[in-house]
């Protein structure tokens, strides 16, 4: 698979200068964007279109610190990744018991409707889970420096990748539950579609 880091002429490291990345993105776009190849032969036009699509995709993936890590894992494991594919959702081990309670509350809300009391409880629970999700994300982002210093040592890499995967799995799980809670509260769920820009 194409290495997005290579597209930008970067080493496979997680700490990135976003301003430099943006500058490079604009440079590459000026070179490849179909607007500037309108008069070329059909083959060259098709090539520009493909190159431009790749640059856009690479930029979108790398500028966001979370999707950057997701992409890195896929790259290291040599498998194709679809944009929104994140780690398979799995609850954090230390939250298993709490999760059972949340599921129970959700079930109740579904069958009995949401009383003011139940709504308050669901909201409090959602607040806790949001905090935890942010913590998981922060931990993933904080892991960047560790990865960057270990990038040349194969032995050190695998455990780091595993830790990233665990945290991403927990985050994916938390997102699903948070969405379920929002839905039970009659609020718009943060659909997994889109808006993860930076």
């Amino acid at each position, binding site marked *: 698979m194409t290495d997005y880091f290579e597209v930008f002429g970067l080493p496979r490291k997680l700490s990135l200068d976003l301003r430099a990345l943006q500058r490079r993105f604009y440079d590459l776009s000026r070179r490849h964007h179909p607007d500037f190849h309108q008069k070329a032969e059909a083959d060259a036009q098709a090539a520009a279109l493909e190159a431009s699509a*790749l640059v856009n995709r690479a930029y979108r993936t790398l500028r966001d610190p979370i999707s950057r890590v997701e992409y890195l894992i896929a790259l290291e494991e040599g498998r194709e990744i*679809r*944009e*929104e594919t994140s780690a398979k959702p799995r609850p954090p081990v230390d939250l298993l018991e709490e999760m059972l309670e949340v599921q129970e509350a959700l079930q109740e809300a579904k069958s009995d409707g949401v009383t003011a009391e139940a709504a308050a409880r669901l909201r409090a629970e959602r607040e806790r889970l949001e905090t935890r999700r942010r913590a998981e994300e922060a931990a993933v982002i904080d892991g960047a420096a560790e990865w960057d210093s270990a990038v040349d040592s194969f032995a050190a890499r695998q455990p780091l990748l595993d830790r990233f995967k665990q945290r991403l799995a927990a985050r994916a799980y938390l997102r699903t539950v948070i969405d379920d809670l929002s839905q039970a509260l009659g609020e718009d769920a943060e659909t997994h579609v*889109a*808006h993860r*820009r930076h």
Partner: protein
Amino acid sequence: MSRIVGIDLGTTNSLVAHVDAAGIPRVIPDAEGRRLLPSVVAYTPAGIVVGEAARRQLARNPARTIYSVKRFMGRGGEDVREEARHVPFEIVPSDEVVRIRVGDREVTPPEVSAQILRTLKQQAEAHFGEPVDKAVITVPAYFNDAQRQATKDASRIAGLEALRIVNEPTAASLAYGLQKLAQGLIAVYDLGGGTFDISILRVKDGVFEVLATNGNTHLGGDDFDRAVVGWLLADIKAVHGEDLSGDPEAVQELRLGAEAAKCRLSSEERTTLTIPFERFTYRREITRAELERLIAPLVDQTLGPCRLALKDAELTRDQVDEIVLVGGSTRVPLVRRRVEELFGKTPHSQLNPDEVVALGAAVQAHILAGGITDMLLLDVTPLSLGIETLGGIVSVLIARNTTIPTMAKEYFTTSVDGQTAVDMHVLQGERELAKDNRSLARFDLSGVDPMPAGMPKIEVTFLIDANGMLQVQAREQRTGKAAAIEVKPTYGLSEEQVAQMVEDSFTHAEADVNARLLIETRTEAETVMTHVRRALAQGGHLVSAEERLLITNALEALGAVEAGGDRDVIRERTIALNRATEPLAQIMMDTALKEAVTSKRADQILERP
């Protein structure tokens, strides 16, 4: 490379523009100096009439005059059922592409739009004195793939190669950016005749990067007019005891009257609407406050998309440096107030909101022609693209607000031994279930080598190009063989249908511009004659016998030549008739005003004798 023009194909008006030798974008006017071409197409017995002449005869010929056709582009008969109730022309019930019946023929929205595009093409050709066959055409940013495709089809039928489909708010930002009138983080609020878009861009060092876009392709000035017409119909019923809602000609008169009154209320606090019907003349004073009460719920519908766009761009309103207003409906003071409240900043419209989109299209055309090399436009796809999976759930392949061009790959296999074809259903939208999204097309992948179930690995590439339009390619990984794809567009025209329409347009085209102009002149003459006859019947007693005689003489003189072939004579006599009627028109207007001013309430004087 030959000349490329920029075209704004609008719901209410359309324009063509180009960048001149000095590098300045300019609107190309028609032979009469008019810059806006009303997007109205009349299928009269004498022939097809487009533009101002078609608009002016609308109330005379409502069943055969098509306006706001943009609202029907790329849609199915089923989804326009509600819309169809509000237009005087007949929409043929259908599960597929919308068809409009005019007399004994049926036309599709792309064919109607092609008439408008062809007129603009001829206008540009007359201006340059050379053929024009390439264009950049704008569409609402929130248009889906089917609506974009319909626009491209229209262009092809009109004999224009659409080199690029550009989003209207993005085009506007190019026009502003070229003149350095907007920099930093800008929000383009674009409310036109039938569509609404909000786009948020970062404009820096010649790079125009769209961060997020949102909108509603069925919300605009048309809806304001509709609200006013509903109110007027109720008023007429109360005051005159007449229900005109079933009379298409009267409804069209009211619609045109409501539209004009709305425009006047952008600069005046109150205005009087005077519409002479056959049995009575309707007069009504409308205040700006009354108009605002009617349209406020519609204006408020634009605010949600603005908030969503800000959220998708991950910006707060305070970070937005400038708000630019585009589209005629942004002249409405209430719209400006609401936008200002929402963003906490005064919006501006330094460039004419009716023209800025066409000017931007011309700038984009100039970029494609190589005339500008330091401007880079990075647009986004407005809607998420996905495929239907088991249980009717959508699996998203490309998220909304992804920079285009973009690409996604998906792998398919077979579920039965020896299976040689796989089908997939592609959709656009933000909902979880396939049935709640916009179905774009079903693809049949055939020619897969027979293998045990699950063995084939078919790689399907979904590519959204710089037009925001989908291209699909498939390849069986094991054999490397490209799989054949048959696309069945859900609400579009097939390749064969478009090819046929292109061919028809050559055989039936009023290739001769003069023939077209003659029909236009005749139509205009008929419109004026109808107005004059009505004015005579209603207010003839207000002028002297001599003046009446002058009018009837002019009327007869025009009537004698109106069906003939001499365009200049018809024009001269139409102008003469207009001039002869001026004193009568003036007196009728004064009477109406006097009555409106002297009465406390307009409805008091409207009581029937």
